[in-house]
């Protein structure tokens, strides 16, 4: 219980009351009653990005006040970034969808009851499955929190088409690690002596505990080198920022490997015992010297040598950070780039080594099985071709190729689309192309707010309740940063749903009832949670109260996996595979080789358009958040960055409005002329360019890189190649 003096608290909060006047429960009511009210702290997992940091939300008189970080949770260790606070405040955003909606015209919706929505959608879905089979139905989501429920629905109707957003995010990385390593490893930042970050910005795509670990290592004397076309936020605290020509990271990596091999700096024992097809790799890349790479990357050959030698000198307590979104969905050579990340780390022999790369500490969870499961139905091949022979055989089926769906809807192949917690119209390439989704007979969006996809394509909008208004099955906190002890965290209900909204499980139950699948959803989130924690010596109540539990009794043994003394990674050889068999079998090179980016800016007014996460936004998911958009306003956050010298040549100054033009779009935006960007590119934050009139805070603010990018498919991993785009920039009229 906590008290705050009336004088300062009530006075300070009076203004907020007016801002929140449209809410059912006004802030002034709350403040009036607040003085002596007890503060309750309830646990949730932040929904501001996919880290799902642990938050204790303070609730007073049933109203959300503020949050503090869960000190245990691996991803944030007690800290919260701006997005986290913004997500907490956003529960009172007036732009939420407050009840089910039915489209009754272009940009026109009619509120309907849940019963009516379920009945109409159920009838249409049944009709579509009868006429075109279940194969014509797709479920698209950010991934993967709706998967357990989506799978039941898809199994029931006979559809293999579960599709995630990852083609816009990191499919090159996951594809390569699955094939070359059979697992994922993460940097042991805190214990490292030398860290090379390339296209990975812990302070932009924020990992609060990642930053804590990096800075702790720095205090102990570790060196941090950031290679990035932009002096990103992480570069600010690094020892060195080395700008690179965007799209050429692969050449930089090939030259690093060249130095390590040529100067015999590699970990010979590791390569001999744990690497397969080293010779094939080396024979293909003997000419990739630092001098060769200098011309391509714009990084001096001597600097490349220095970095390679420093990595080797500090091995195994050094690594090339395995990365995330940056680089892994961006270029024609993203897959080969991702392969080289593994090659370099393997050459350093840092795998399963403290200070190098480690696996996540993990626990065995129970598996929830509903009592009744849908009878098996015959399904056709995946409609997007992911993982299908003769189509996109090498693409991970579990990720899918979302950018194929609008075209398939237009062609009549896709008849029904469910979109859950996903907004491809704004976060996928080419919004005009994405709008073709509405050509499907039935489009159902399950969002929180009036996002572009819902507003422009959905026949029905079924609003999910806010993340603080629902409980979800527990999740492990593993990934991206390392930890000796596994953890389990849970999102619990902080406050009751304010509006006529429902958690996904209840939405699925409502739909299932109408199509005769009710019995397969006869369970609760608690049933799921209890089954999952069954092997652990904990109670659900314990987990709910703590929010995040750490299992200190589990030992963590970071050693290369062996079986009977032989390497036992989950790869064909059990070793790190420098050459990927499935790539070869499908006509690609098994080992990485130099592939230039697909497009190259050549004229005086041409630039590669690149993007990144601004520290206070999470791509577009936070862009309708009034508090976070106010930060944008304070710091001129929508401006497009352009190299100062290039800007001078074009007569452009900071604050000028410029015209940006690609083959598919022309937009205007203010610029920031900066010394902190490579001359070949312009950079925009990925948060802006809202075009849903009902999401008022985001509407019409700034531009988005996706406006300019055509719908393309990288053939191995299926990524969108989001930075293979050239724009022309000229001074605007304003």
């Amino acid at each position, binding site marked *: 219980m906590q008290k705050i003096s009336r004088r300062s608290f009530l*006075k300070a909060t009076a203004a907020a009351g007016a801002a929140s006047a449209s809410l059912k429960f006004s802030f002034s009511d709350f403040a009036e009653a607040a003085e002596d009210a007890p503060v309750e702290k309830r646990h949730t997992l932040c929904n501001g990005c996919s880290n799902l940091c642990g938050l204790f939300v303070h609730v007073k008189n049933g109203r959300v006040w503020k949050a503090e970080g869960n000190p245990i949770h691996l991803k944030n260790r007690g*800290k919260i970034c701006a997005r986290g606070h913004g997500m907490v405040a956003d529960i009172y955003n007036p732009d939420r969808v407050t009840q089910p909606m039915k489209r009754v015209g272009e940009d026109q919706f009619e509120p309907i009851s849940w019963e009516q929505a379920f009945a109409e959608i159920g009838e249409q879905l049944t009709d579509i499955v009868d006429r075109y089979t279940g194969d014509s139905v797709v479920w698209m989501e950010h991934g993967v929190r709706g998967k357990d429920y989506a799978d039941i629905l898809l199994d029931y109707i006979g559809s293999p088409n579960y599709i995630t957003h990852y083609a816009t995010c990191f499919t090159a990385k996951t594809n390569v690690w699955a094939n070359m390593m059979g697992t994922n490893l993460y940097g042991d930042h805190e214990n490292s002596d030398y860290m090379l970050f390339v296209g990975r910005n812990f302070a932009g795509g924020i990992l609060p505990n990642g930053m804590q670990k990096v*800075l702790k290592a720095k205090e102990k004397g570790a060196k941090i080198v950031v290679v990035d076309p932009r002096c990103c936020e992480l570069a600010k605290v690094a020892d060195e920022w080395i700008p690179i020509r965007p799209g050429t990271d692969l050449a930089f990596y090939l030259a690093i490997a060249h130095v390590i091999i040529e100067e015999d700096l590699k970990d010979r024992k590791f390569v001999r015992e744990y690497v397969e097809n080293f010779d094939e790799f080396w024979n293909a890349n003997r000419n990739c010297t630092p001098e060769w790479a200098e011309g391509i990357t714009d990084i001096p050959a001597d600097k490349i040598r220095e970095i390679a030698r420093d990595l080797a000198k500090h091995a195994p307590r050094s690594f090339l950070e395995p990365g995330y979104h940056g680089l892994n969905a961006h270029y024609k050579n993203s897959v080969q780039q991702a392969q080289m990340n593994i090659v370099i780390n393997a050459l350093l022999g840092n795998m399963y080594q403290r200070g190098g790369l480690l696996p996540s500490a993990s626990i065995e969870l129970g598996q929830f099985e509903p009592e009744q499961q849908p009878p098996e139905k015959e399904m056709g091949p995946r409609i997007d071709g992911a993982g299908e022979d003769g189509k996109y055989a090498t693409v991970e089926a579990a990720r899918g190729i979302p950018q194929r769906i609008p075209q398939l809807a237009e062609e009549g192949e896709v008849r029904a689309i469910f979109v859950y917690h996903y907004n491809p119209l704004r976060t996928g390439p080419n919004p005009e192309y994405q709008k073709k989704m509405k050509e499907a007979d039935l489009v159902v969006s399950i969002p929180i707010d009036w996002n572009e996809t819902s507003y422009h394509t959905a026949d029905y909008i079924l609003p999910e309740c806010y993340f603080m208004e629902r409980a979800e099955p527990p999740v492990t906190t593993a990934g991206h940063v390392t930890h000796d002890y596994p953890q389990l965290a849970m999102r619990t209900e902080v406050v009751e749903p304010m509006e006529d909204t429902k958690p996904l499980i209840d939405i699925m139950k409502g739909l299932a009832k109408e199509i005769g699948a009710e019995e397969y959803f006869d369970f609760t989130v608690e049933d799921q949670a209890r089954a999952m924690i069954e092997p652990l010596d904990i109670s659900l109540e314990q987990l709910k109260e703590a929010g995040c539990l750490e299992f200190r009794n589990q030992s963590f043994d970071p050693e290369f996996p062996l079986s009977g003394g032989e390497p036992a990674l989950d790869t064909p050889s059990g070793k790190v595979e420098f050459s990927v068999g499935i790539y070869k079998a499908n006509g690609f090179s098994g080992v990485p080789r130099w592939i230039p980016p697909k497009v190259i800016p050549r004229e005086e007014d041409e630039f590669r358009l690149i993007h990144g996460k601004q520290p206070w936004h999470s791509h577009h998911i936070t862009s309708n958040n009034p508090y976070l958009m106010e930060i944008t306003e304070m*710091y001129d956050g929508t401006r497009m960055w352009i*190299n*100062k010298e290039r800007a001078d040549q074009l007569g452009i100054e900071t604050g000028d409005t410029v015209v940006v033009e690609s083959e598919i779009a022309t937009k205007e935006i203010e610029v920031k002329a900066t010394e902190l960007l490579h001359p070949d590119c312009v950079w925009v934050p990925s948060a802006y360019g809202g075009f849903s009139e009902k999401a008022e805070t985001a509407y019409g603010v700034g531009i988005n890189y996706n406006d300019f990018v055509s719908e393309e498919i990288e053939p191995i991993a299926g990524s969108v190649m989001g930075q293979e785009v050239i724009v022309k920039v000229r001074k605007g009229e304003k």
Partner: protein
Amino acid sequence: MAKYAMLIDPSRCTGCAACGIACQLQWQLPKEMHYNHLEFAEKGKYPEAWLEILPVQCQHCEDAPCLKHCPTDATYRREDGIVDVDPEECIECQICVQACPYDVRVVNQETGVPEKCKFCSDFVDQGETPACVSTCMNEVRIFGDLDDPDSEISKAMAKEDTYQLLAEEGTEPRVYYVLKGEKIEFSGK
């Protein structure tokens, strides 16, 4: 009695702006009102260029111009050194806004009272840490009692070279900045 102060290390800041919004939620401020903010400045020439960030808020000056010029004693100093504002006493003359060399007074549009960072006084009294401190992943700020030699801030102050913003104004701020290389000066931008 405690002697509260804050030590800010600008070299650790990566500009995520969590400090600003954590403060807003703590005090339930409307979105336009900020008790703290960041100053961004570029230095050098590409490719030898770098970014500087300076977190700025009320400096809780020992010789505070806002307090000296306040005609009604609405602005007052607590015994622990925290400079606070009593809205009941405020006549909204806004002299304090003009007097503050750090330009950190923000007028509450509802009440007309020029407010500012309070070092989270009410919460500090409950044994808590200011919101801008506790949320920060990079541990840019340390808050504590300079009279306690064992406090984190006393130890850090003993270890680090520090400076104060606009020291020449003689305001004697209770907010100190870690000096690494050249001073990052307050620009007011």
